[in-house]
């Protein structure tokens, strides 16, 4: 006998009721001193979740509610296994721990390996005009913030543009390469690849370089980024990660938003991979053009600075670039 409450669903009135298993596959409802017989197949029975009350709905839409979950399961017996498999997963602590491991592993693997591939597909589908629009906006934003017009003399600027067009003329990879020279104390000696083939080089870098071959090594690295459409891919990954965070943390709140920091850390790892790709492209380009690879090491070591204190470096899981000792052989590093 299952104890419970009965609702006629025409009003909010509640009555005490009992449900009794009678012959095979049928039950008897005792309510208000009356008895009604139902076949199990006629009943709509809610599936079990935690220890919340179960509801049985009769053909006339009236309802029976009970806290006796085990009683209802016994009543159903083997007759109706229904969709209890989810509840079987949910009640088991071992499965819960396994699911936890699974969640962590799957999200890690997806962001680490799946997302870059998906971003590559999306980037391949997006037309080159996308790159142009983004590139134009990016350089405008940078010009408002970190960049000032170049202070190099006209002759030097012309030489650098010349150098860059000679480098890119033979590539024929569909990108409209363009070199933008800017003065930037904020960025220091640096070069940045934007979508649409825009490569920004700072005056500080031009001053730092001992010769043009070193500059070519850095520019080749940036061309590597452009060819791989790395900037666009990273933007797509960013959109992907926030979309995943919304799906996983269905009800977003300020507290749960904290958990979305984890994928960002994984993305910085992907970013380091893109840097390595661009490094490899640069070294290959130098070899192809019979320029000593040493130029790449020289300029990179000088850009990061041999006096660069280890303490000032970001921990590896936050860094967007691989550590310098993994990218180049620096003489003063004594490695």
């Amino acid at each position, binding site marked *: 006998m299952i104890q419970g409450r009965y*609702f006629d669903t025409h009003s909010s009135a509640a009555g005490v009721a009992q449900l009794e298993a009678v012959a095979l596959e049928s039950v008897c409802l005792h309510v208000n001193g009356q008895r009604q017989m139902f076949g199990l197949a006629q009943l709509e029975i809610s599936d079990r979740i935690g220890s919340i009350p179960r509801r049985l709905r009769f053909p006339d839409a009236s309802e029976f509610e009970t806290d006796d979950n085990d009683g209802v399961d016994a009543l159903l017996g083997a007759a109706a296994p229904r969709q209890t498999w989810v509840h079987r997963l949910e009640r088991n602590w071992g499965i819960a721990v396994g699911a936890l491991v699974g969640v962590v592993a799957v999200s890690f693997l997806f962001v680490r390996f799946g997302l870059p591939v998906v971003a590559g597909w999306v980037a391949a589908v997006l037309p080159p005009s996308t790159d142009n629009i983004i590139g134009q906006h990016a350089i405008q934003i940078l010009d408002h913030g970190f960049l000032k017009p170049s202070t190099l003399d006209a002759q030097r600027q012309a030489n650098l543009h010349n150098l860059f067009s000679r480098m890119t003329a033979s590539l024929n990879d569909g990108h409209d390469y363009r070199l933008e020279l800017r003065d930037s104390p904020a960025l220091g000696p640096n070069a940045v690849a934007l979508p649409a083939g825009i490569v920004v080089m700072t005056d500080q870098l031009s001053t730092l370089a001992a010769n043009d071959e070193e500059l070519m090594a850095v520019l080749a690295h940036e061309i590597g980024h452009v060819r791989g459409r790395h900037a666009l891919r990273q933007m797509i990954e960013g959109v992907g990660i926030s979309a995943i965070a919304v799906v996983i943390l269905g009800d977003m709140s300020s507290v749960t938003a904290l958990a979305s920091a984890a994928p960002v850390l994984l993305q910085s790892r992907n970013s380091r991979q893109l840097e390595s790709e661009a490094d490899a492209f640069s070294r290959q380009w130098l070899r192809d053009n019979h320029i000593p690879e040493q130029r790449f090491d020289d300029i990179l070591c000088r850009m990061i600075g041999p006096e660069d204190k280890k303490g000032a470096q970001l921990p590896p899981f936050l860094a967007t670039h691989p550590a310098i000792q993994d990218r180049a052989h620096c003489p003063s590093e004594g490695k």
Partner: protein
Amino acid sequence: MEEQIAAPTRELPLQFHATGAEYFRIWIVNLLLTIITLGIYSAWAKVRRLRYFYGSTSLDGTSFEYHGKPIPILKGRLIAVAAYAVLALGGRLSPYVAFLMLPLIFFGVPWIIVKARLFQMRMSSWRGLRFNFHGNYTGALGAYVGWMLLAMVTLMILWPWALWKQNRYLLGNGAYGTERFEFHATKGQFYKFCLIGLALLLAALCMAVLPIRMLYTAHPELLRPNPNALPVEAAMVSLKLAGAIYLFAGPLILLAVAWFHARLLDVSIGGLTLGPHRVFARLRTWPLFWIYLTNLLAMICTLGLFYPWAKVRMLRYQTANIGLIAHGSLDQFVADTQTQASAVGEGMHDVFDIDFGF
């Protein structure tokens, strides 16, 4: 409702039976299934989550029930994800695209609010009787777009008024069976708690200035940016600064939020009546603040694993302080026959077909 003669008055707080341990297992299984089905299962997960929390909450010995089905929720989510992708990509490609989408958002959001609220209310029941929602699109457009624009134009002076309109729209249009909820909170009450909340926030911001001054006294060179400073060093300084601000101002901001949250529920939900019965809400700021703070710290320490317990703690405190002051019997509510039939029936109307609620 007919006149109640010498009706006994009972105070019936909501009862909450969920436990963190039980919800943890439901949550983690939901999460895994959602991930391995690439988000498809999230609709089923939402149904299980809401059924668990509704079923764990009871009033006068009977629990609430959530009747939502996964497919309408899935449809709503697919549309939302598509819209999000278009907005996110469109906005990033060009600000003009984002600008063109503005009217779409202005007129679309109220529609989504009506649909989500309608679904949420009609899919909820107590003692076998459905809740309902009578708000229309014009009402939502006024409260959520019209009044918000007015608030912005007046430099947020009218914001509490807009918030009052929105709460009156969401709560005052609710119904249980055929009985309508009535919203009694006043604009004055909203202005009062908004102003005090603002004062608390300003105090928090003042506290934030303190660590910045300390940092600059300790590192005067920060005032003269070093042109040779590495971007990494600059980033570390910003990181320290942000940390200091969080440490000093964070608890105060949390306190302001707790105050706002408690007062909003007390004033808006606490001012509702349903026939002769009155809803009460008596949340207090300090317990709520304590739950916020400890939940936050526990979430950080456990890398988010504490989430199910945090959720249950929060709901337990809220439900324990919300309830009904019943005057007489709760048996006399009558089903809104039309709603009852269409909601229970197989072929649901198109209004139920999509759930946009998140």
